[in-house]
């Protein structure tokens, strides 16, 4: 059988502590083709980072446990990888830009040293050539080269974030997983950074999973989008389909929460209520307590994915 670059099937991940069992990911299926950009969107706590860490084989254990499912990278199940194979995979196959940029930089090394170190490891260049490659990549993400000898604390929030993006791009991975990579960036720099990433994707046939809560960024960057809610993908399809005909009430609510540029001062309409507690998920559809279309059936049993190309998990209009 022909495999896609990355296939996730039936992934279940919990965080288990003495007192709690957090059901973070509850049966996720996703695929990523070569050259494709997939947007992964969803509320805080929906399980996006947990999916990403599962792919990287970096779920903190304890408390995290992958309870089931498979993650196939070029047909090989990463869950059965040895530590050595994982290291190899993280070095050359899949790189991740972590959500918390502050912990990804070493505070006692200059930014230039840290970037050059990555280049030396991956490209076997001399130190001098590595430093030059680092400087070039920094400039491409909009940080001037006279900042190469600065320490991370001398960078602004967005500059740190760009240093980390530069670091990930210097690895030239086959899959880049970017967890909220541009949250601290203004729109011009964000546009510039996304443009470089898109360019590298085309040039090197790279693929990307972009985790973000910015639906505008997804619209401009991604081919497909997966919307997560309470550890499940609730809507999945091409950006075109999902944006023009959002099917799941949660997706519809997300679009309604965005401040609009073209209207004046109206009050924002967030989705009522809060995300469910992942230690005690409601039976049935996890979204029902906040849903305006809730029926009896929604409380009783969880809907399956419906549809083929454009899929969604909702009882509404089901026969």
């Amino acid at each position, binding site marked *: 059988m022909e495999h896609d670059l990355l296939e996730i099937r039936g992934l279940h991940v919990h965080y288990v502590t003495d007192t709690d069992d957090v059901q973070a990911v509850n049966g996720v299926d996703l695929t990523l083709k070569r050259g494709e950009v997939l947007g992964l969107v*969803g*509320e*805080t*706590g929906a399980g996006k980072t947990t999916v990403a860490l599962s792919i990287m084989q970096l779920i903190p254990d304890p408390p995290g446990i992958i309870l089931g499912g498979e993650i196939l990278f070029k047909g090989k199940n990463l869950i059965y990888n040895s530590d050595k194979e994982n290291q190899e995979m993280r070095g050359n196959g899949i790189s991740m830009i972590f959500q918390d940029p*502050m912990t990804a930089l070493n505070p006692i090394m200059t930014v230039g040293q840290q970037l050059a170190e990555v280049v030396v490891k991956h490209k076997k260049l001399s130190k001098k050539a590595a430093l030059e490659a680092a400087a070039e990549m920094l*400039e491409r993400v*909009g*940080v*001037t080269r*006279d*900042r190469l*000898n*600065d320490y991370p604390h*001398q*960078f*602004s*929030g*967005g*500059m740190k*974030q*760009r240093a980390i993006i530069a670091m990930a791009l210097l690895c030239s991975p086959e899959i880049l997983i970017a967890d*909220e990579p541009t*949250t*601290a*960036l*203004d*729109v*011009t*720099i*964000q*546009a*510039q950074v996304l*443009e470089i990433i898109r360019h590298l994707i085309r040039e090197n046939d790279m693929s990307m999973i972009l985790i973000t*809560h*910015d*639906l*505008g*960024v997804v*619209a*401009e960057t991604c081919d497909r989008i997966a919307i997560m809610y309470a550890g499940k993908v609730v809507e999945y399809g091409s*950006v*075109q389909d999902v*944006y*023009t005909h959002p099917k799941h009430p949660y997706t519809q*609510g*997300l*679009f309604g*929460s*965005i*401040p*609009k*540029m073209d209207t004046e*001062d109206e*009050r*924002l*309409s*967030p*989705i009522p209520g*809060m*995300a469910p507690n992942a230690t005690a998920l409601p039976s049935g559809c996890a979204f029902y307590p906040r849903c305006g279309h809730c029926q009896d059936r929604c409380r009783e049993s969880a809907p399956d994915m419906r549809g083929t190309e454009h899929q969604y998990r909702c009882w509404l209009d089901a026969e």
Partner: protein
Amino acid sequence: MESLLTVSHLKKYFDVPAGRLHAVDDVSFSIRRGETLGVVGESGCGKSTLGRVLLGLYPATAGDIIFQGMDLSTFSKKDLIPIRREMQIVFQDPYASLDPRLTVAQIIEEPLRLHHVCRSTAERRERVEELMEMVGLSKRAYNLYPHEFDGGRRQRIVIARALAVGPKFVVCDEPVSALDVSVQAQVLNLMIDLQERLGLTYLFISHDLSVVKHISDDVVVMYLGQVIEKAGKRDLFKTPMHPYTIALLSAIPSVNIREKRQRIILKGELSSPIDPGEGCRFAKRCPFATEECFQTTPLYRELEPEHFVACHRAEEVRSGALQFKSV
């Protein structure tokens, strides 16, 4: 209306390995009581530094900060302590800005203790509960730890802590940038309600223009340490006059995939904030730059009532004689 805070010729320089970094460079503006001044601009342009200098968290290199008629630049550290009660900050990162070892109540209490606001433990408890209710945290949260909360609820804790001592002025440094859209909308609505209820004045820093547009009365646009445009939000978003502002507005990612907007992607080299020379700092990336732009720093001037801009060619931009070629 009367101004609560007026800043004139404010500067903050840092010494870094390559020279003197002009993080905030000759910035002047004022904020009226009860209003919100939005601050936008490129990453690294000095927004956070500006906020910190205003609160006295960094000493200013030069310039005046007049708060409720008092010139804070003449105040000693000790004199500043009571003023601190009136000025608070809400940081971007609700993860990093809360001490994981303290409970929610202990976090909110901290400033109350620091400023000796409550006379008894009972009074303090009452105040903490009042604050929790005000920001929409349930009583159940009292003895919980921050890691037991998601980003939106953590940001509510941060807001409760900032409001504990009853400030008049709050610097909000990217308070909703780390939150997803739905939670972001809840927190923004909360901040607007609290402003009305308590008569707060905000300096609201964000790189998200739709958020700034939603919450602000006036907006300043910064570029490499300087304010390059300031106006009422309606004017700024409708008739921007600085080429950088125009590019910034065109770059907002849109969720409307049917309407293909004209975007301007800036090209050209970035200028460095380290020992910048004379001339407009945007000139290297500006398609309209002339010899003059590279030679002399444009004056920050009031081109239309209440609409300030620092650009040699603003008149031509305004009249439409200069137009971006967009992609």
